[in-house]
């Protein structure tokens, strides 16, 4: 396999892995937090938002492409059958964290390899992704005439995404810090 072909294969694999992660976590959210649904598109807790931020931070545009593919697989039938939604909803799901990441890096000077990443960057990125996703999603829904109760919809997405990210990252943070403590005291 030539180096270029190997690079393409690695990129495709990364896209597929992210898409699969999205689908799994989306199904998990339906199982655990479907009671927090506010509308067809929004939940007060949405843990797949953590997949968005992690995918883009680790893989950049490949992560975003994986998110678009994953979101396409998890489209509701009503949206999958309506072409503007079938295209725009998955694309906005992938672009939102990419834009948020780009904006945050310009604002803070965060390096591409995430060297020097701090807890405050993760919190800032989580909020930026949530706000950007809310903005893009509601823009799509507004342009397609699908949105009702705009302010509640906007707030739900921001809160849902931010809560979802923290629900995933905080236990991971505890696990990592306790694991390190145990290693240093043994």
């Amino acid at each position, binding site marked *: 396999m030539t180096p270029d072909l190997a690079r393409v294969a690695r990129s495709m694999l990364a896209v597929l892995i992210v898409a699969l992660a999205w689908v799994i976590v989306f199904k998990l959210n339906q199982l655990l937090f479907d009671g927090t649904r506010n509308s067809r598109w929004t939940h007060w807790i949405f843990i797949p938002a953590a997949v968005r931020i992690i995918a883009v931070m*680790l893989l950049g545009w490949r992560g975003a492409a994986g998110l678009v593919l994953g979101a396409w697989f998890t489209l509701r039938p009503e949206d999958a059958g309506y072409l503007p939604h079938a295209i725009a909803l998955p694309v906005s799901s992938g672009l939102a964290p990419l834009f948020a990441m780009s904006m945050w890096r310009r604002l803070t000077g965060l390096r591409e390899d995430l*060297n020097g990443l*701090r807890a405050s960057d993760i919190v800032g990125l989580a909020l930026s992704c949530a706000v950007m996703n809310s903005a893009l999603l509601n823009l799509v829904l507004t342009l397609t005439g699908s949105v009702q109760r705009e302010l509640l919809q906007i707030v739900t997405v921001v809160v849902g995404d931010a809560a979802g990210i923290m629900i995933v*990252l905080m236990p991971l943070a505890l696990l*990592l*810090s306790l694991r390190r*403590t145990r290693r240093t005291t043994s």
Partner: protein
Amino acid sequence: MPDRLLPSSHSVLRLFNLLDGIRQLSPFSALSPEEEQLLGRLVLRWHGQARFTISDIMHDDASSSPSTVYRRVVGLLDKGLAELHTDPNDRRIRYVEPTALTREYVRRMGEGLADLFPEAHRA
């Protein structure tokens, strides 16, 4: 480093840096052994020497790369165990200074040692 390793190592670097950032979210994110060691050296410097900058620390520490030392200093800054004070005569220079938390940390260490070695403390 061979060029072909760069893309892979780039993703690995991102992963390690991301995990390190996530770990800092934890309220139980204690000082790492390296940060604790660095703090000890800083305490000695604050006690005995003139004011110093992050660059001074990075250049004087031969055991780790300058970027690694810088990251540890930033870790101490983030945890409130050091702070930067700008030189009023040259605003480009920022000195690393202890905080109230550092003093509290040193005080507790001293109390802990006094409890462990009361004879030495009395002497």
